[in-house]
């Protein structure tokens, strides 16, 4: 791998130690989770093994395969359609297809269940039409969960694949065509392999998210390992045993990341960044054009319009808007503030880690980064406890020090302030920022570094003047992704938010946990709206390359 080899003449300077310190600190919560295995709970494991562990493992694998294939196929196909083709509505779909990212997964799940289950409007209407004994075939929990998660998580693949397709520019593809490859073959032989690191990175994100998800599996009654974590935690009051099951999830995450590295392919595929004319999309006509528009429209309708429409209906029905609406502005304010700071901090750290690895891919940095990223695949509540425990310990240490030195006790500096919450967010979403940036950084030819170095630039200068401009799109994508994820984040927020800090997600959750869906609709819409702004800005900022083509 080109990115693996130390760049010739590169003096890594402080980059390597800095990356090592950062990644080791961020890996602490994952290590805390893994360390739970040190004190075994044989009775819980014996019970699980006798009653359900094989089923849970099988279900989890089936879930990963389904969601991985679904998100990979759907995300890549949609990105390929909108970047390389012209069809009615393309310009709209190009940015609109990213909108489902702003809809929390559990909202999508709940709306789908509400719409399509036996008592829902669809089947009720069908029964009124075809008679009372009519019922739709039950798709089963697996198919339902895979469907909903595919619709919720495909945007990761779509975003990354689209950015990769656009970054390729036209030159590469045109060369291929000039050499006599028909368009489809050129796509298969050139476009796809070049975009592979990004596509695989997006798919890995979608699969890690599926691994950690509790809301959707709980809604459809699908028994995954994550569902078991919560059942053991809340049902047997055994957080330690629950954490051990979560540690099992780490093995899945480890396998996923290894698979991702293997599938990224040889990163010797770097590409010319010649700023030539943009991609010239192929014009679709007739049937294919119709099919393209209808396909994009269907995905958009199911993954975005349907849930948002339902939220609007509920919001209108809620009536008691003053009960909900009064606190909306402060909740929105703190949510956006937290998400903004998290997005910036996460991306700065992710760039540091990715660049340090490029400069000198030392084994300790690689290992620590990988461990830190596994936090994304563990249920949010578990990794949040992994953040809480070391912070609480640090608070005790600080307090003891204050008593010694200042002769007075200290309040909860970390666990009682926004600092702890920000740490938790960064730990949780580092993978999102890192995956997005690293995949893109791997595509920059090392000879650009070499040239800049030869011209006298230092490591920081190369990053600032060569890489960051080239990575502009990925950087914006990473910022937007982390921002949106933070807005939706719930378990860590619940565990670590200081008194008086209520985010929109917490507001939605406190209402939905009492089944007050109508009341939750307004803050739910606010989440979607707050998430939309950065998503749309990103698309505008990164959409210029194809504007000439539409």
């Amino acid at each position, binding site marked *: 791998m080109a990115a693996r080899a130390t760049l010739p003449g590169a003096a890594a300077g402080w980059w390597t130690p800095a990356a090592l310190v950062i990644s080791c600190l961020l890996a602490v919560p994952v290590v805390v989770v893994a360390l739970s295995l040190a004190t075994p709970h044989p009775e819980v494991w014996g*019970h699980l093994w006798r*009653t*359900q562990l094989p089923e849970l493992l099988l279900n989890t694998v089936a879930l990963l395969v389904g969601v991985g294939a679904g998100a990979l196929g759907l995300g890549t196909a949609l990105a390929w359609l909108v970047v390389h083709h012209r069809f009615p509505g393309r310009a709209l779909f190009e940015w609109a297809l990213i909108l489902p990212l702003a809809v929390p997964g559990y909202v999508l799940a709940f709306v789908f*269940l509400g719409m399509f*289950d*036996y*008592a829902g409007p669809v089947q*009720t209407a069908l029964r009124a039409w075809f008679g*009372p004994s009519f019922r739709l075939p039950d798709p089963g929990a697996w198919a339902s969960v895979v469907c909903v998660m595919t619709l919720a998580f495909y945007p990761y693949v779509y975003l990354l694949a689209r950015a990769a397709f656009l970054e390729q520019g036209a030159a590469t593809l045109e060369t291929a065509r000039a050499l006599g490859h028909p368009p489809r073959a050129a796509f298969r032989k050139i476009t796809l392999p070049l975009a592979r690191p990004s596509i695989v990175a997006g798919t890995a994100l979608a699969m890690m998210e599926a691994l950690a998800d509790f809301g959707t599996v*709980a*809604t*459809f*009654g699908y*028994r995954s390992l994550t*569902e078991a974590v*919560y*059942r053991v935690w*809340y*049902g*047997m*009051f*055994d*957080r330690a045993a629950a954490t051990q099951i979560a540690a099992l999830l780490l093995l899945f995450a480890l396998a996923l990341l290894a698979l991702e590295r293997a599938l990224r392919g040889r990163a010797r595929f770097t590409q010319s960044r010649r700023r030539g004319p943009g991609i010239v999309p192929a014009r679709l006509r007739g049937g294919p054009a119709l099919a393209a528009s209808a396909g994009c429209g269907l995905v958009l309708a199911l993954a975005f319009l349907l849930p948002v429409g339902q939220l609007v209906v509920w919001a209108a029905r809620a009536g008691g808007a003053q009960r909900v609406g009064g606190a909306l502005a402060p909740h929105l304010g*703190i949510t956006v*503030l937290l998400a903004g*700071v998290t997005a910036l901090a996460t991306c700065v750290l992710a760039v540091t880690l990715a660049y340090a690895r490029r400069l000198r891919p030392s084994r300790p940095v690689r290992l620590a980064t990988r461990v830190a990223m596994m936090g994304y695949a563990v249920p949010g*509540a578990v990794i*949040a*406890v992994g953040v*809480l*425990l070391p*912070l*609480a310990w640090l*608070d005790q240490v600080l*307090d003891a020090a204050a008593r010694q030195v200042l002769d007075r006790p*200290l*309040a*909860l*500096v970390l*666990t*009682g*302030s*926004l*600092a702890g919450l920000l740490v938790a967010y960064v730990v949780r979403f580092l993978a999102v920022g890192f995956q997005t940036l690293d995949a893109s950084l791997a595509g920059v030819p090392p000879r650009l570094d070499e040239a800049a170095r030869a011209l006298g630039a230092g490591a920081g200068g190369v990053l600032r003047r060569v890489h960051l401009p080239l990575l502009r799109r990925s950087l914006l994508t990473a910022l937007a992704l982390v921002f949106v994820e933070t807005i939706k984040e719930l*378990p860590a927020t*619940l*565990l670590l*938010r*200081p*008194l*008086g*800090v*209520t985010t929109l997600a*917490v507001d939605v959750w*406190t*209402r939905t*946990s*009492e*089944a*007050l869906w109508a009341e939750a609709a307004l803050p739910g819409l606010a989440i979607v709206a707050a998430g939309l702004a950065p998503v749309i800005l990103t698309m505008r900022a990164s959409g210029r390359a194809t504007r000439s083509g539409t």
Partner: protein
Amino acid sequence: MLLGGLAAVGGLTAAPAQTGQVVVYSARHYGQEPAFEAFTRRTGVQIKMLNGGTGELLERLKAEGDKTPADVLLTVDAGNLWNAARAGLLQKMDSPELQASIPAHLRDPEMRWVGLTVRARTIMYDTRKVKPAELSTYEALGDPKWKGRLCLRTSGYVYNQSLIATMIRRHGEARTAEIVRGWVANQPVILSSDTKILEAIAAGRCDVGLTNHYYLARLLAKDPAFPVAPFWADQATTGTHVNVSGAGVTAHARNRAQAIKLLEFLSSPEAQQMFADVSFEYPANPQAGVTPLVARWGRFKQDDLNIAAAGEFQAAATRLADRVGYK
């Protein structure tokens, strides 16, 4: 702006306990506001709430230790309260008033928590297809006549765990396993919320189900013609299973006196009525009245087993459900 926020929060946590404030960690997010406001009006004591799931709030209390800002833990399900007490997060309350207001079976024998509102988990039936005479006990839902006609919520749901836990306390593991096996043999439709069970009954997918009573009350408040009614299970024997939402004073409460005052107020008939009116729950204090919609269902015999059993046998209940294949 961020620095300002951090400073503000830092200042808040660093401030010494204000005597005019009680901090409540709450896993109950609905229905208590009117009573809290009334307490503040009466005493001038402000109430600060931090909402969260019970699991998260307990972890948080443990991590905060003697520095916790929380004075009161308010949560749902007796099992959760029992677990908080077992973890040493609650302190014994010395209050004759609380003991007088709340019946003995609805509070901790050691007075570390008290139930404040009562939820009955009982049989719900389709009024168009089922006659009350066909129903009797939880156990009878295992009768083959209900095959394919029963809707249940997932076994992982806390109120089902508590129901099974108290059955274990009452009947022993073997007989409880028989009862639950009977339900499972009827191939119940497993749904993910109580409201979904009630809607499924109304839509004709099943004829009977088990839910908490107030979910039906909420649906009836919106649609008086909703074709589902409650049947009070086990009236001829031990009484219908009830659970509570309740509260205790945290082990390291800074404002212990006001915290106990708050709980005493919440258990008074006046505040109990406020709970009942907003949330359709039964008051724990027998002197308070129920809201008219719920009053129509008449009086019923509660199972008077101390509900601490819900916590004591909860892990056993979870294992039992797994063993007999109740998902």
